[in-house]
């Protein structure tokens, strides 16, 4: 047969193959021009003369599983063709990296061990995009990484200690007060026509703000949120208590998580439903609607107890500040404060008069 005939009948005979041994021990043939796209394989062939037969098959690094080899060869098979446009290559790459995170990690590792830089770049960029915009917790979860940094190493801000009981109770108190005010407004006699008109537009705007189905929606989502929060709260409280324990300086009522734990303990010991209280506690950022929902869920005895606490707290708040601080401090059995008083009204009046003078210039500070 002529050469041309040969080429037409058996084009595969013109192709060269390299012998490669994968990590499972199996040996296979791979088209040479495709495999040589990987620098590591190229080196083995050129420098060490490996891969020409089954006996001297190139054994791949541990990080390249048979599945990964297959993927990498797909990549190489596409890109080693010279004629492709940049657009084509980019399009292929975008589709190629669409895989689950686990495979992506394996692939990055495999490509790195074969020194296939373009694929390492492609997969690394994809991993970077996964990491971007995530919190440390989320990143840890995605990649199963340990949470082993100490407090000193975390130069980032502390978590906001919003499970502070005073803040919880304060929010509850304010929610109640607001409810009372709203009810009072509804019952009030309308004096002037203008006022009536105003109220209506206010109500319109209010209903816009609260949304049409706001209430029912709010309740549904709050239930789901609560469960999740409960677990988080329990987890967070334990380690932070230890941290504060070892902290040299004792923080006072305003900051101490240990105090928080003590108050909690006292509340818990007087209340039977430990978990439900923590449930309620978790939702301090929830709008007032969710608070009311929480109240309805708790059993009446507990609810009475909480109401009493709120009344106590209201009384405490309305009395003088130093006495309040002392009560809070005595709950936590910390050192007592002295010589602290606030003259809110007096100070306010004093300021009001000095404000008018500088109004204009000052307004520009709102930039």
């Amino acid at each position: 047969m002529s050469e041309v005939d040969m080429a037409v009948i058996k084009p595969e005979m013109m192709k060269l193959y390299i012998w490669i041994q994968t990590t499972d021990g199996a040996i296979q043939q791979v088209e040479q021009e495709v495999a040589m796209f990987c620098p590591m394989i190229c080196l083995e062939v050129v420098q060490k003369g490996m891969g020409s037969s089954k006996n001297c098959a190139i054994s791949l690094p541990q990080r390249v599983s048979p599945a990964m080899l297959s993927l990498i060869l797909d990549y190489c098979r596409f890109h080693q063709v010279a004629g492709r446009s940049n657009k084509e290559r980019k399009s292929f790459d975008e589709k190629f990296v669409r895989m689950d995170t686990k495979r992506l990690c394996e692939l990055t590792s495999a490509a790195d061990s074969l020194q296939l830089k373009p694929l390492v770049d492609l997969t690394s960029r994809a991993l970077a995009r996964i990491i971007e915009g995530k919190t440390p917790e989320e990143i840890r979860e995605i990649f199963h990484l340990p949470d082993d940094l100490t407090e000193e190493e975390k130069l980032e801000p502390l978590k906001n200690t919003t499970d502070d009981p005073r803040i919880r109770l304060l929010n509850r108190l304010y929610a109640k007060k607001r409810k009372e005010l709203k009810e009072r407004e509804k019952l009030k006699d309308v004096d002037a026509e203008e006022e009536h008109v105003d109220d209506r537009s206010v109500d319109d705007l209010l209903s816009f703000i609260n949304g049409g189905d706001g209430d029912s929606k709010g309740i549904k989502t709050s239930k789901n949120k609560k469960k999740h929060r409960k677990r988080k709260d329990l987890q967070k409280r334990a380690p932070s208590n230890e941290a504060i324990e070892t902290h040299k300086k004792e923080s006072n009522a305003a900051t101490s998580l240990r105090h928080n734990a003590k108050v909690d303990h006292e509340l818990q010991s007087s209340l039977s439903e430990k978990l439900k209280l923590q449930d309620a506690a978790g939702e301090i950022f929830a709008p007032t609607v969710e608070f009311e929902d929480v109240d309805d869920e708790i059993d009446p005895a507990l609810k009475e107890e909480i109401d009493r606490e709120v009344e106590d707290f209201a009384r405490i708040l309305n009395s003088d500040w130093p006495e309040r601080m002392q009560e809070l401090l005595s709950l936590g059995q910390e050192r007592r404060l002295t010589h602290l008083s606030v003259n809110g009204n007096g100070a306010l009046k004093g300021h009001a008069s000095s404000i008018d003078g500088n109004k204009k210039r000052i307004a520009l500070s709102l930039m």
Partner: protein
Amino acid sequence: MLRKANSFPEEVLEHVLSFITNDKDRNAVSLVCKSWYEIERWCRKRIFVGNCYAVRPEMVIRRFPELRSVELKGKPHFADFNLVPDGWGGCVCPWIAALATAYPWLEEIRLKRMVVSDESLKVIAKSFKNFKVLVLSSCEGFSTDGLAAVAANCRNLRGLDLRESEVDDLSVQWLSRFPDSFTSLASLNISCLGVEVSFSALERLVGRCPDLKILQLNHAVPLDKLANLLRSAPQLVELGTGAYSAELKPDVFSKLAGAFSGCKELRSLSGFWNVFPGYLPAVYPVCSGLKSLNLRYANIQGADLIKLVSQCPSLQRLWVLDYIEDIGLEALAACCKDLTELRVFPSDPYGVEPNVSLTERGLVSVSEGCPKLHSVLYFCRQMTNAALVTIAKNCPSMTCFRLCIIEPRAPDYQTLRPLDLGFGAIVENCKDLRRLSLSGLLTDRVFEYIGTYAKKLEMLSVAFAGDSDLGLHHVLSGCEKLCKLEIRDCPFGDKALLANAAKLETMRSLWMSSCCVSFGACKLLGQKMPRLNVEVIDERGPPESRPESCPVEKLYIYRTIAGPRFDMPGFVWTMDEDSVSRFS
């Protein structure tokens, strides 16, 4: 080597991190686990320190050995409104000294609201062999002498940006100090300079720097010279003109128009001091491609503004004086559908009567016509809740909303009610809101809305608002992402502050001036919170000379791991354990 499923290939972590440059992402990465913390810190190239007193330079150097770029901020934002007395601090000197020794390969330094001496500039000029970018934003304390050192020694300088800084003129021809062999300049912003620069040196510099993309001149560069500059730099992308007025001469005009037509890459225009409207059409050739237009200093009347703006359909950012009026904003809304940022500045803020017809309607038109609007700074004299509710509905993707009603405590002028509901609608609808400035008559209710809805809010500016501590409490307890809070002339006192003391450690800073926080509360806070610096700023004299219940003039609280600072002037006291015993 056994490997868990899904486990991250740590050998490529450094490579992956090379694609992650955003500060927040780098910070998140560093907190994942011990090994990531280590790998991340060794390959971090760029660092942003939002408060120069939050950390000591030695700490930064110890943790990040391979930095190439450092950005620092000094004084609090309210320093822009003269609320921070001169001499408060923010001196960059110790940082520069430490950086000079630790990072000989440092390439970029960016400073904002800091005091920079000529000495520091000289150290920069001599210490970093590959220095590329210097940005001094709203800085002070240096002169043309320091600039001369930078020009003479930084052979690879790519960017020199002096935006809004105060530069002392020592009559040094510093621009001439760039050697003739110096050709790497890509960005030059000298718009803040009050003095003349040698025009011939400027011309030669512009002519020999083929990569120059950003050129912002100061007002001393005359209009008739602008054409020459443009002709030697047709590759400019951003231009800040000098003074934009001269006698109307046909040849000057045609030269200028011709020069502008040659600038095919121009996307941003600013400057326009002292505009002579007759010369405005000279920029028309570049208007169709213009993305950013800053007419903040351009005292041109509505009709001319409308004509100009209507030529710019691709406009994304517009800064303009209120001469544009409602009617101009309507035209803007009709023409510039890609608008993302609008700032309207007051032409006569201290005037008693409005001098222009700019009301809430202008902003409403823009919100209706420009669906991509996400950043607003608006000075006006009247507002209604209804308008704010409309704006909120029209712009759900708003990220920055700063409304400045010039008269403090101005109510909704139609209903005479507080503007609580209007701002409430803004925070409820604009779920991505990161920055908010309030104005007008506001009660504690607005803060309740903010605390409830503004979950992504990072910066809040408040003045003459609220009724009681409840207002402050709502914000501190509700805004989870709050980073910077600045308050002036509000009836907020000790209770909310002390009850939310822990929150302060999760924020960068809190500024309160002319409020009702007592000296006693400041002492307590400083004593109990070792990771906060509680600075009492009081020009009336030492706070212990007054009763403990007496409110302090100004209070600046910021989290820090550097402990109290030692460069405080006589009118600043840091409250801490020691000072408490000292004071009592």
